[in-house]
Structures are given as structure tokens and as C-alpha cells.
């Protein structure tokens, strides 16, 4: 529970209707889309202005209580899981588009604006906002900034980091930082790069300026069906090696293809062990040339089926199966646990094989549908949460996948963030000295460590407790690996 004193302070600073204290009002906020670990917030504040945000920051700082910021609550790593003794600051009502500047090709918006809305308002100028996480219809841009969200089109157009050019950030100590803007460079340290992906631990973003790009004139989608998952994985590396950067390059394994077909009947080759979807966009000449190249590479890798979609309707149909993959997975099992490891592309084939082996060992199904071009895996572990053994098995299975990603030169999270979900694996990926450096950075903005405590960066004690395999006398885990 939040202290009476802090609550009194909030009521003194804010209108009553933005403060939610009753259990039934707070329950919808007890988790984000990572529902494994829930917590009832001490109090919820639905901010309606930047002034409200300032007030909340001031009260949390003066009363020395935790502050968790939340957007749409679609995050998959528990980054917005509330704190029982703190304030949950919800920014979804701060959703105005403040400006679209067609000459600069930028849009300036409030953090609660949904990702998709930016592209909608940019459309009349022939522009769009490129990063498109699968939750883009609901997720807010503030959350995208906090998690450095990705999506299907990040292979060519970059992550949130590459598409955010300016931020206004309020720190818990009451400072306002105006970072970046419409210039291409600026004085001082790149605090903008530091803020993106900082999981709400350094400040609260109140204004975001994003880069807009011209909507591509032409778009093609190539589907390739393969008889072997590993060969399909190698084909991904082959496409990139041929000098093509597709707009999107996605892979689905046999189970995912079947699930999607049952759900939406899009006409994927059901006998294929893996399907690649490759989107090519740009000028007409560019798309024609790269489509030929990719089709040629698919042939070299013995694709059993190659299908080309050139009109928008056909393209949509081919994408539909990919888009319904997650809800389709929901039909395959009572629950699924979506992982987010990132690996070098040349490891896709071998890692998928390893995951199949783990699946047999844990006796739990797994479905793979992921951003192959980025080497960003999303294994969906199928389980039944009401069965304690399966629940624990799924968590262990997931952790083993992440450890394996580190082992092959990858990372524990490509685009979902660490949150509470992967906090223990941080101790595997980083040395104590590196984690201590993260804490020193945190202190630059929040010396009392009240911003989103318990998330993203584990305490040194937690890493030490996790056991001898991790860090010994400053030695990195897996010291023989260069771990870049």
C-alpha cells in the first residue's frame, strides 16, 4: 500500500478523478501483456496533462516512493508491472499529435499516441512511421521508446532508436531534458540514444519527435516454401549476402504454418517444413531487380514453392497468415509463452534445431514465427498454465533458449525488453562490472532509484545469489567467447 502521506500529497496536487485507489479500479492495471507476475499498484494516476506528470514525479521524489510509468500496457516483458507501494503513472490519455512537419518529414506527438496513428496522420503527406511492432494498433509510442520496439519492417528501416529524432524527458528530480530535435546533430552526449530502450528507469518521456519516410511506391511479397527448416534459415543469410535488404523477411515453421492455415486459410504450402515471407519495397525498378534476386536465391536453396504477390490484395493475403500467427498459436494450447532472443543470422538453422531438441526434453510444443532477417527469434512455447509442472517447464525452457542465444553470440532480448521477465538472464549476459556501470548511469538521473525499481537492471546481490556459473572474481560467464 502507498503511504497516507504520499496519497495526501497526490490529492493536493491533482484533480480527484485522475487518482484511482479502489481495488476494482486498480485491477485492470495489475500487469502489462506479461501476465505471469502480477501486482496491484499502490495507486494509479491517469495523467491528463504534462502538469500532472510533473506533480506525480515531485510527489514520488519527495515521498521517496516507487514510480512505474505505463502506456498502453502491451509490453511483453513486464516492464510496466506496477509496484505495490508506489504510483502507476498511466500516460495513455496524453495522446495528441502536436505537429506533422512535411518539409522536415517529422511528427511530434505525446507519449500515449498509438504507433499506428502516427502513420495514419502522416499518410496525407505521403509519409509513414516505419517501426511497426505487431501490437501497433494498440501500443503507444511512449512505450515503443521505453522498450526500443521493433517490428517487421525494422530490417530495412531500423528500430525505434533509428526513427526517433527528438524527446522531451522529465526526470524524477524535476529536470526537463530536451534531447535532439529537428537538427541532424546537436551538442553534448547522446542522451537520446540512452533514453531509448531505458525501460522507464531514467525519466518520463512527455514529447516525442519521430522521423517520417515516404510511403514506398511499389511493394512485392515473395513466399518461399522449404522442405527443411535449417535450409530455410540458411536461405535468410543467403538473401542478405546477395546484397538485398528486404523491407521485411519473416520465417514460420511447420507448426506455425499449420496454425495460420487453420485460423485464416491464406493458402500457405501445408507440406512445407518452413515458409519465408520476403517483402521488397521501393521504386518500381528497385523492386523488380531485388525480387528477381531474392527468387533466384530461394531457388538456390531448393525452395519447393515460390509464390510472388505484386498487387496490394495478394500481398495482404500472404501477410495475413503471419499476422494471425500469434492468435492462431492461442488455439494450439491453453497458453503460450513468447520468447525474444536475438542471434547472428548464420545461427538460425542450428538454433532452431537446438530448440526442437529442448522441446522434446521438456515435452512442451514450440512454434517458431519470427523476424528472420534480423535474427530475432520468437519461439512460442505451448503449455497449460493451470498445470504447475508445465508452467515451470515453460519458464525453464524459455530460460534455456535465452542462455543458448548468449552462447551462440546473441542476446537475451531483441525487441521486447528485459523488464521483470529476463532480469535473471541479465546476470548471464553481463559481468558484475558492467551491471555496476548500468547502475551508475541510472544514478545520473535517479539517485534514489525510484523509477521502475526491480526492472531491467538486476542488483549485484541478485546476480551473485544466482550462483557460481555466472560471475567469479570479475570473470565473465563463458570467458572463451568474445560475446559481442
Amino acid at each position: 500500500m502507498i503511504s497516507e502521506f504520499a496519497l495526501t500529497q497526490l490529492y493536493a496536487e491533482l484533480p480527484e478523478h485522475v487518482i484511482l485507489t479502489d481495488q476494482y479500479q486498480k485491477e485492470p492495471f495489475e500487469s502489462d501483456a506479461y501476465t505471469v507476475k502480477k501486482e496491484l499498484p499502490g495507486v494509479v494516476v491517469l495523467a491528463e496533462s504534462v502538469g500532472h506528470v510533473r506533480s506525480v514525479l515531485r510527489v514520488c521524489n519527495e515521498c521517496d516512493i516507487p514510480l512505474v510509468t505505463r502506456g498502453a500496457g502491451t509490453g511483453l516483458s513486464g516492464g510496466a508491472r506496477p509496484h505495490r507501494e508506489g504510483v502507476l503513472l498511466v500516460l495513455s490519455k496524453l495522446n495528441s499529435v502536436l505537429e506533422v512537419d512535411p518539409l522536415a518529414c517529422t511528427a511530434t506527438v505525446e507519449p500515449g499516441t498509438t504507433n499506428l496513428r502516427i502513420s495514419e496522420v502522416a499518410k496525407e503527406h505521403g509519409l509513414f512511421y516505419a517501426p511497426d511492432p505487431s501490437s501497433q494498433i494498440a501500443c503507444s509510442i511512449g512505450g515503443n521508446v521505453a522498450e526500443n520496439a521493433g517490428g517487421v519492417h525494422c530490417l530495412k528501416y531500423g528500430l525505434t532508436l533509428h526513427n526517433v529524432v527528438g524527446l522531451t524527458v522529465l526526470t524524477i528530480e524535476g529536470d526537463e531534458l530536451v534531447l535532439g530535435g529537428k537538427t541532424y546533430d546537436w551538442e553534448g552526449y547522446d542522451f537520446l540514444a540512452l533514453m531509448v530502450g531505458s525501460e522507464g528507469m531514467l525519466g518520463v518521456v512527455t514529447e516525442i519527435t519521430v522521423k517520417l519516410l515516404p510511403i514506398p511506391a511499389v511493394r512485392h511479397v515473395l513466399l518461399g516454401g522449404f522442405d527443411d527448416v535449417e535450409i530455410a534459415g540458411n536461405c535468410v543469410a543467403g538473401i542478405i549476402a546477395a546484397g538485398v535488404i528486404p523491407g521485411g523477411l519473416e520465417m514460420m515453421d511447420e507448426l506455425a504454418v499449420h496454425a495460420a492455415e487453420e485460423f485464416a486459410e491464406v493458402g500457405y504450402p501445408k507440406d512445407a517444413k518452413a515458409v519465408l515471407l520476403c517483402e521488397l519495397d521501393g521504386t518500381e525498378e528497385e523492386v523488380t531487380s531485388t525480387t528477381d534476386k531474392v527468387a533466384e536465391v530461394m531457388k538456390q536453396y531448393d525452395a519447393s514453392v515460390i509464390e510472388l504477390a505484386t498487387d496490394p490484395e495478394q500481398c495482404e493475403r500472404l501477410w495475413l497468415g503471419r499476422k494471425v500467427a500469434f492468435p492462431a498459436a492461442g488455439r494450439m494450447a491453453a497458453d503460450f509463452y513468447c520468447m525474444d532472443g536475438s542471434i547472428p543470422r548464420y545461427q538460425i538453422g542450428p538454433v532452431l534445431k537446438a530448440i526442437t531438441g529442448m522441446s522434446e526434453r521438456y515435452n512442451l510444443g514450440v512454434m517458431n514465427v519470427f523476424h528472420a532477417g534480423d535474427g530475432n527469434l520468437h519461439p512460442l512455447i505451448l503449455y497449460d498454465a493451470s498445470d504447475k509442472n508445465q508452467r515451470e517447464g515453460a519458464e525453464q525452457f524459455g530460460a534455456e533458449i535465452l542462455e543458448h542465444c548468449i552462447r551462440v553470440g546473441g542476446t537475451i532480448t531483441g525487441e521486447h525488453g528485459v523488464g521483470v521477465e529476463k532480469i535473471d538472464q541479465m546476470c548471464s549476459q553481463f559481468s558484475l562490472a558492467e551491471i555496476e556501470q548500468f547502475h551508475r548511469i541510472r544514478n545520473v538521473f535517479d539517485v534514489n532509484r525510484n523509477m521502475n525499481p526491480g526492472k531491467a537492471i538486476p542488483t549485484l546481490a541478485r546476480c551473485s545469489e544466482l550462483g557460481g556459473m555466472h560471475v567469479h572474481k570479475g570473470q565473465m560467464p563463458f570467458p572463451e567467447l568474445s560475446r559481442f
Partner: protein
Amino acid sequence: MSHDSLPLQNAVNTALEQKQPLRIAGEGSKSFLYTGDTTVPLLATSDHKGVIEYRPEELVITVRAGTKLSELRGITAEHGQMWACDPPLFDGRGTVGGAIASGWCGPGRPWYGTVRDSLLGVEMINGYGELLRFGGKVIKNVAGFDVARLLGGSQGTLGVLMSASLKLLPAPEHTRSIATSLNSRECTTLISQYSKKTSTLSGTCYFDGKLYLRFTGVAAAVEKEMKAFESNEEIDPQFWQKLRDHTLPFFADDKALWRVSLSRNSMFHGVESDELEEFLVEWNGSLLWCKSQNSLPPTMSMKPYAIRGFRNVKHETSQSSKHAHRLKLAFDPQKIFNPGVVL
């Protein structure tokens, strides 16, 4: 763990014990930009060089900081790839470490992004003498704060950069460059059309009444766009390298040169002014180079800008100077790296 980091790590630890500040430099190609104390001993990273890992099919290369940019260009070009942010070589000796520390990039900045955009991971020595690794060598990585990218443009104030993993891009298969005589308003009209459509445009530069344009990409796409410029003068593509490395005649005299970063929407039409004696604009009108003996013309200060004096170095007080100071101490509590350089 790369054992060859020991000499530099030992040098830092000795400096920490003796409380002896150090000035970090690669080959010194950008020493004219250095604003710190030049009397302190030099910590040279130039011998810490070479490729650690290069997998062309991954579009990622990991190199030691002392590797020369010219060498990096050669190696990646063999595989038809490039480090797209294209940092200046200046006198030809520029290193990867120097390019990251300065954060400077070439004429393709608006299309290809900046140095930090392609920085996937780093290995560094902080002011505690610890060898640390941040980021990685994969395209997507959101584990921990993005320290790797924070080092872009940090001017060696946070630690000694040891090696970096860089994202590469396929080099364009075809390039054409032309020059056309236009006034600045006509430049704005022309270039603003390109910002709304998919195009192969990847370089613009305006000075002396001429607009220089570069088109790169798939041959058929470039050639199609070139049809609009059939009557214009074809120029040597070396122009863009000379622009990047400041070897164009424009940069050849000793007058004070100012580098002004303007808003992305300022385009070209705002720069012609009686107060500007000589100027050159690149990055679609957002980067202005101008010569002025004393201070900047007053009209410039009316615009939204970030400014870096080039030969006459001028520093604005950063809005977040309190946090900049704290960040410096978070990495380098004894302030031994590049004393006098303040960001």
C-alpha cells in the same frame, strides 16, 4: 576475452594509480578538433588495430579501435559492402575509434544515418580500469542501457574505446552525380519533392550557385531518375569524398569556418544572406558550413540550431550540463580521460 587489450588496460590502471590524466588519440587526424588539455600524456590507440571478426553475410564487422577507416573501406568493399555513415578520413589517417568518438559522418547522413545508428556493440575501458562490453554483434539488442551508442560522439571523455561491432550495408551497385545551376529557392523546391517519394537520391550539396546531386542504388532505378537531368553536367563522384574530407577548394583557405546544424525543414532558401560571405550547404539544407572572421552572422542565431565552431571552437552550454557532468563521473570519477573536453 581479447588478451591484446592488456597494454591499454595496464596504461589506464597505471594512470589511475598515479592520478595522471591522459589524452586519447588514434592517428591524430582530427587533432584540430580537440578542445582539451594538450599538455597531458598521450594514450595512443593506433597500435590496437585490425579486424576481429567479419562475416559478410551478417553485414557486421568487429574491428579494433585503431583500425584505419581506409583499411575498413578496403576490406568491406571487397565484399561489396560499406560502413554507410561514411565518416571523414581527413588527412587519410582517420581511425574507426576516432570516427566513433567524434560522431561525424559523411554527405549521406540524411539517408544513411549517423555513426551511432550503425554501432551495435563496443568494448571499452572505463575510468575504473575495467574492461567492459556493451551491446553486441546482432542487429537487434535491447538488453541493458545502450552504452555503445552513448559513446558515439562522446569525444573520448567516458573511456577508451577498444573495439566496435558495426552494422554494414550492401554498397550501391550504381552511382551517378550531376551539378545543376539553381538559386537557393529553386533548390528548396526541387529537394522538397524528393522528401515525399521513394528515390535513389543520397547526397545534396549547394554552393557557388550550383546544386550537386548524387543518386545511388539499383542501376535501372538510378538511370530512370537521371533522365530528368540529362542536360546537366555529370561530375566526378570523387566530389563527395572531397566534400567529406574537406579537400574541396572551398575548405582550402585559413578563414574561420563554422559548422551550423540547422533544422531539417530549413532546406536551402534560408541560407543566402548578405551577412554570409561564403557558404556551403549539405544534408538537404540542414548542415551549413560558413566562413566568417569573427562571430556567426546574427541571422543564424535566430534559427533553431546546434552549433559547433570548427576552427574557432565555440561551445554552447548544454541544456543538460548537470547530467553531462554526472555522466562523466559515472564513467570516469577521477577525470583522467581527455581533461578539458566538456560535453
